[in-house]
């Protein structure tokens, strides 16, 4: 747990520096699909720079929670504050422009575009250049930041390759590069390790732990190894509700959690 301890201590250092507004503050957030309650009265506070894992079986409401936070769906009720600002009524793009990012569980990439162009589009989305009718030149700042992001996720060898020709793991890495574009303040990773090979998982952990320390994130992950190595706090969800919150060690040792998720036959999909 040395890695985790180090991360935790650096968060507390930063918290004193960045003031008191929480990165994310959810109050009584619910989402109903007709009669189906996908999320029920979710209260959650994530501090700036905090790295949190959200665990739970399939159908626990993890991705729905992400969709409500990013504005892909409007929550049925509740308040969502992003760095102190109420964003529940904002459309998705307004939240993104305030520094929120996400990746998708199923890759939503632009298949006919090259790796670099995908990242470039992501960089343009949060800049004033998104309506530009002028093609990027050789010294274009957005293109330069796209190129450096491609390097961060180790895709520089395939930067000109069309996304449809990439391996699955590379597509997941590209998703991360797109989420990192344009100075994010907080990122939601939706199962970034799903379907990755052991080597690719190690690379993913390196990328996530290597993120600048002010960049907090929430990660949905079935793979406990990945989740517990990159996160300093854990939220367990079950049937649309928050079931447990705590440090990774506490969650691992919790008997109820073990019964529901980590241990017995009911435990679902460890990666």
């Amino acid at each position, binding site marked *: 747990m040395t890695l985790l301890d180090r991360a935790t201590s650096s968060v507390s250092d930063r918290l004193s520096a960045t003031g008191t507004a929480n990165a994310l503050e959810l109050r009584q957030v619910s989402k109903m699909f007709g009669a189906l309650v996908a999320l029920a009265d979710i209260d959650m506070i994530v501090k700036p720079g905090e790295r949190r894992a959200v665990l739970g079986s399939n159908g626990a409401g993890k991705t729905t929670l992400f969709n409500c936070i990013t504005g892909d769906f409007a929550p049925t009720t509740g308040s969502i504050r992003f760095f102190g600002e109420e964003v529940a009524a904002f459309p998705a*793009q307004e939240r993104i422009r305030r520094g929120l990012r996400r990746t998708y569980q199923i890759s*939503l990439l632009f298949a006919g575009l*090259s790796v670099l*162009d995908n990242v470039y589009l992501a960089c343009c*989305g949060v800049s004033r250049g998104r309506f530009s009718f002028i093609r*990027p030149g050789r010294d274009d700042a957005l293109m330069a930041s796209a190129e450096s992001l491609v390097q961060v996720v180790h895709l520089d060898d395939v930067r000109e390759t069309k996304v449809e020709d990439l391996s699955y793991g590379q597509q997941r890495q590209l998703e991360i590069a797109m989420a990192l574009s344009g100075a994010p303040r907080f990122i939601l990773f939706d199962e970034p390790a799903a379907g990755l090979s052991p080597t690719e998982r190690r690379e993913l952990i390196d990328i996530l732990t290597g993120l600048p320390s002010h960049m907090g994130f929430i990660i949905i992950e079935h793979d406990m190894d990945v989740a517990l190595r990159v996160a300093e706090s854990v939220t367990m969800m079950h049937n649309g509700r928050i079931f447990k919150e705590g440090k990774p060690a506490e969650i691992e040792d919790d008997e109820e959690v073990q019964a529901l998720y980590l241990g017995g036959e009911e435990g679902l999909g460890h990666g």
Partner: protein
Amino acid sequence: MAITESNTLPRTNSGQRKVWFERIPASYWVVGIALLIMPAFASDFALYQVFGWTFILGMISLSLMFLGGYGGMVSLVQMSIAGLAGYMVAIFGDSAITDISMGWPWYIAIPLALIVAMLFGTIVGSLAVRTEGIYTIMITLAVAAAFFYFTRQNYIIFNGFSGFNGVLPPELFGVDWRQSKPFYYLTLFWAAVAYFSVLYVSRAPFGLALQGVRDNPRRMAALGYSVNAHRIAAYAFAALIAGTGGILLTWQSAQISPGTAGIGPAIDILVIAVIGGMRRPAGPFIGAFIYVLLKTFAIDVLLSVGLSGERFQLLIGLGFLAIVFFSPDGLLGLWDRWQEFRKRDPLLDRGEGPL
């Protein structure tokens, strides 16, 4: 539809640079030179009626291709936008209907006409972007129909059924632009401007994002794009192209009337884009060329085989059916498939053949 047009963004590490003229593909040289020297051997009729009209219809259809091919929005209002620009030139500028025409100089009338056309396109766009697919087609068709009936019934501004005649291009540089050769070059120039603008914009951030919006609007919103604002801006840009085509169209026949922008012509613009191919800006011009050839010469062919000359629409319809049946991507799609077919390895019978 995948993004196909946009894989050639300039790169900072593209290796050794070529001189600008080396980067122009050979096909552009061939077509460009052929078009430039065309007046040396083509008849006045061919220059004015066939090529002039091809370039004009190609431009209006190009505006539809831009929205449909890059934006995934099939708009049937492009001909009405072109018609409105034509009307505005007649109203702000000179025509034989002196009671209505204001007689303002061309450098005021033409920009005003284009601004009005863009405004119209933006308004229709902001209505249409709230819908998808067939509903976009229906709403734009409804606007086109409304425009047709409004211009036919309104006598105060649009002079009703008869519209405006005597709408002539300005005699700039001492040239009579309605002579066949000058008109040919005038339309060729603006068609080229429109073509290269669309090609350029398709690879600029705006065009890339538009193609992203077409392929995955939800993801684009999650990247910070205002999907609807992007679509509306595309309508405005397309209206500028359609408006330019509309002004040239009005000058070509020296008149504009409700029939110019009726429902039939609105659908013809779609037919032209589909015949040529909606995936590349060259498609609408190829489609327009075939449409104009059929419309101009089908009557002679039909008469020579003893059929009524009015059946030329039948020929267009049959050609349209055949193309849509064999190649949903239009003639350019057929060409692409032929190229893929030639690349196939005859022994292995493998290759990047058509799906």
